[in-house]
């Protein structure tokens, strides 16, 4: 009977597919093909991390070496440094960068005139539309030896050659570019916060700090927590583009992160296998982080994950 029910089920499915074939072919098809070709095929390519890959012999013909490249990377002194650089850059970036949009949104919410508020928002969002390259170009100009910052301080410091300056430069320019844009969603949530509640609090004689605690913070609290967790889950996937554009030969001690190292080793030096192993290591840590984060969000979000 069980088999019969299964048969029936299968039959129903086949009938459904025949009736709704357009859904599979026209709607789902293109996305599925792109996903399989550009996302799943490269996953097979991960095998070269366990081989002494030779482009002429291909994956099938190359010699297997097991975990050699992982051992090589994990035991090299560079490993710890690049891992720490990656972690420090994203964790400090998160800790410094995360509160800014919230503060901006709370401040914007206290501006009575909506005209002024709109003009300020226009300025705050603008840097988001400047490209990474232009942003880093501006940073290089403003901080150059003959640039305005040195002129104002009367010094001749070449900031981009100082390892200790890299992270502050990266993080501050990130806040400059992204804080306004990231504040949009908090601003939208605050605009939806109950006006009656706020007025009631004002009539009760609550001061601004008390109003923020009682009315505004509850309106954005869930969003803040979820955003923080989401961003914390992304600390290993910090982008290549900006770090690479702010690197100089002199500041590599703090600016070489795993993403830039994988690029240099793999594509510039041609160490395909080694570089794939390093990339895989990074991906695995990232997967663990993301799954953990997803579990946390699920718990907070009434069982609804991402």
């Amino acid at each position, binding site marked *: 009977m069980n088999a019969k029910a299964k048969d029936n089920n299968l039959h129903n499915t086949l009938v459904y597919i025949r009736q709704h074939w357009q*859904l599979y072919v026209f709607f789902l098809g293109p996305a599925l093909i792109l996903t399989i070709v*550009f996302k799943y095929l490269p996953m097979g*390519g991960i095998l070269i991390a366990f081989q002494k890959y030779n482009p002429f012999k291909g994956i099938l013909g190359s010699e297997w070496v097991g975990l050699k490249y992982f051992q090589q990377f994990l035991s090299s002194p560079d490993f710890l440094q690049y891992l720490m650089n990656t972690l420090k850059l994203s964790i400090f970036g998160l800790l410094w960068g995360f509160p800014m949009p919230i503060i901006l949104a709370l401040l914007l919410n206290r501006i009575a005139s909506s005209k002024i508020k709109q003009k300020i928002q226009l300025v705050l969002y603008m840097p988001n539309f*400047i490209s990474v390259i232009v942003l880093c170009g*501006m940073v290089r100009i*403003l901080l150059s030896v003959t640039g305005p910052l040195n002129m104002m301080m009367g010094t001749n410091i070449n900031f981009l050659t100082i390892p200790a300056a890299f992270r502050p430069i990266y993080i501050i320019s990130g806040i400059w570019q992204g804080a306004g844009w990231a504040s949009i*969603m908090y601003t939208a949530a605050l605009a939806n916060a109950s006006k009656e509640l706020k007025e009631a609090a004002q009539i009760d004689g609550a*001061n601004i700090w008390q109003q923020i605690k009682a009315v505004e913070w509850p309106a954005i609290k869930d969003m803040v927590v979820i955003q923080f967790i989401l961003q914390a889950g992304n600390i290993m996937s910090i982008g*290549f583009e900006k770090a690479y554009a702010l690197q100089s030969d002199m500041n590599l001690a703090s600016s070489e992160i795993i993403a830039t190292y994988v690029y240099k080793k793999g594509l510039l030096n041609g160490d395909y296998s080694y570089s794939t192993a390093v990339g895989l290591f990074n991906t695995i840590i990232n997967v663990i982080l993301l799954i953990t984060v997803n579990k946390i969000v699920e718990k907070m979000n009434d069982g609804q994950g*991402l």
Partner: protein
Amino acid sequence: MEKTLTMKKSEFARASIGDKIFLLTGYILLGLFVAAIIGPVVYIIIASFMDPITLQNKGIVFDTSKWTLTAYERVMTNSQIWTGFFNAVLYSVLFAAISVFITLLCAYPMSRDDFKGKKIFNTIFIITMFFGGGLIPTYLLISNMGLLDSMWAVILPGSFSVWNMIIARTYYKGIPTELREAADVDGANELVFFFRILLPVCTPLIAVLTLWQFVGMWNSYFDAMIYLNSANKQPLQLVLRAILIQNEPDPGMIADMQSTAQRAQLAELLKYATIIISSLPLVVMYPFFQKYFDSGIMVGSVKG
């Protein structure tokens, strides 16, 4: 609005001293942040008009006789910049169009409760958000497909976005089912329903996704850097990278200068004009799309 304005003003007047200090501190902080954004931009705008030698020795001088349009002339007449602009527009338009179209299509069956296989497909898509082959395997694949130095290597791999598909799916689900049932009565087939009835009520969604994808492609450089070799295929960001980051502008832009020092000064000045010219299109256009941002946030936040 006038009314709320006057009411709020009196509110500020009525506020206690503690609140006033609190508010003033807040306004000053906000003002500082706004100034910190405008400051560097204004500096670069002014500096772009200056004579390079004066700029290097004295900084900004408000003596307009020292101002010049040389940098702009050189940048505007440079063919690399224009090729870069053309390529960036081409790639970004194609990428946004293909990406949004495929994403909107895919989200439709995924939004239907009766769609058989939804769970499996969902898993297939979600896995790619967590796990991937990484840089080298992807590069080798593109290379084996013969796509090196082809614009499709930049456009196709990232064109289907699972994240955007989830957003679109959630958006579809918010559309009243009456619409769907009306279409069933008419006997409309899926494609007709999708294009004639569903898409027309999704304009905010389409606008937001298109904007995101366009800006994303316009501002990126990594894929173009690793996949495109030919000079005539470089998008704007790579041309900018040569000028701004690598200090290697197109030799034609500075070749007529006599000494190395002069060439270096001119190359420095070109940076300012390049920044302004290349950033102008998006920065000027974005306020016109601002009305979509709020709806975009609404679109984006429902998934959370």
